[in-house]
């Protein structure tokens, strides 16, 4: 699925629920969430991602 920066796909809340994102994170545009939180191929940056969010992707 190709998204432009700032674009929020309809399934963003479902992704947030699956990956255990915080509610604040879930409200961010999905493209940002995908860039910083991973599962199956999406790599979070451990230098900028909080420990809680990073470990939430395991």
């Amino acid at each position, binding site marked *: 699925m190709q998204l432009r920066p700032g674009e929020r796909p309809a399934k963003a809340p479902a992704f947030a629920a*699956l990956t255990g994102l915080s509610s604040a994170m879930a409200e961010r545009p999905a493209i940002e969430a995908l860039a910083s939180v*991973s599962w*199956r191929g999406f790599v979070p940056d451990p*230098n900028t991602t*909080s*420990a*809680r969010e990073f*470990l939430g992707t*395991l």
Partner: protein
Amino acid sequence: MIDLEPNSAPHPSDSRQIDARTDSELDGMPFGVIALDESGVVLRYNLYESRLARLDKNQVIGRNFFSEIARCTRTDSFEGRFKRMLAKGTVGSSEQFDFVFGFAFGEQQVAIEMLLAAPGKTYLLVNRKSVRAERTQAPSVPLAVLQRALAPEETVLGVRRDDIERRFVDVSAPFFAALRATCDRVAPESWQLFATEWGVQWGRRAAIDLEAWAIERGRASLRDVPMQELAALVASTIGDRGWGRPAFDFVHANEGVVTIVVDRSALAEAAPRSHSAGSAGPPVDLACHLLAGCFSGLMTYVADRRLSAREILCRSSGAPCCTFALVSHERRRIVDAAILEGRRGVDAIRDALRSAPGSGDAAPSR
């Protein structure tokens, strides 16, 4: 394999719930807990409060909080409020207020919740809002007591403390070898369970210690620290104490596993060299269950969800270093099964996780 207890804390305003908690449970809470009797004598004092006040609970319990421990609280806004709450005697009542604790080593801006949990039994729940190395209050304000004033001359009694007044015991490797040998004699199949649970309990307390570290450095919470910084913090916390220095590898995080490598684990080097299990039960060639449990307890606290660390390779069995796999609690059984099947190493564990039902494109089981 052992299951971790849920990582939960009572809601601070539920006084009956907090009074029912054990001392061990209070020690797992990321805020200070102090219980006082009707005269202000300290009945209970948890780990977080001990850490940030730099006072040993063994010297604090039994002393008067207002006159002997925190003389800065002898004000109408604190001690006066305490006395009025007792006089009113409404069990379950609570009050919240801000206060500044004046320590010789700096000030701490705190939010206090004062609860009358039972007749004559008051709880102080102390949430640190900020910690400063300097003081802004007038010098005439009496300061909280220092540990060395509570227990002078304790060095000659065989008590050692670090620079933040935590008591420590200098333990050599033979101590752990003796512990393992004892367990092998009296309950040989319980070693893994015992060591893992011990490690989990250690990890929970280490997390509280690091939470205090975070608040002292202006962080809202340990959980907000970037992952890489947390990894460095854990490495120094464990490595500087001689356990061996853990190195975190996040390369496979996108597959749901973080690996932790300890080159020179003290536990592995103290353990008997690998020998045949010869019986049912977990393999005996993994020696670092204590560290695995510690990683589990610590990371479960930070993640605020259950994570499990398993040792997959151990120096005691000839591997060049000890390697741990940190995965979600739900997927720990995949790792356990791979270990029991002799499928060790990072690549083998990754293969096991990939091929497990629910892996691939599916979302993780949570």
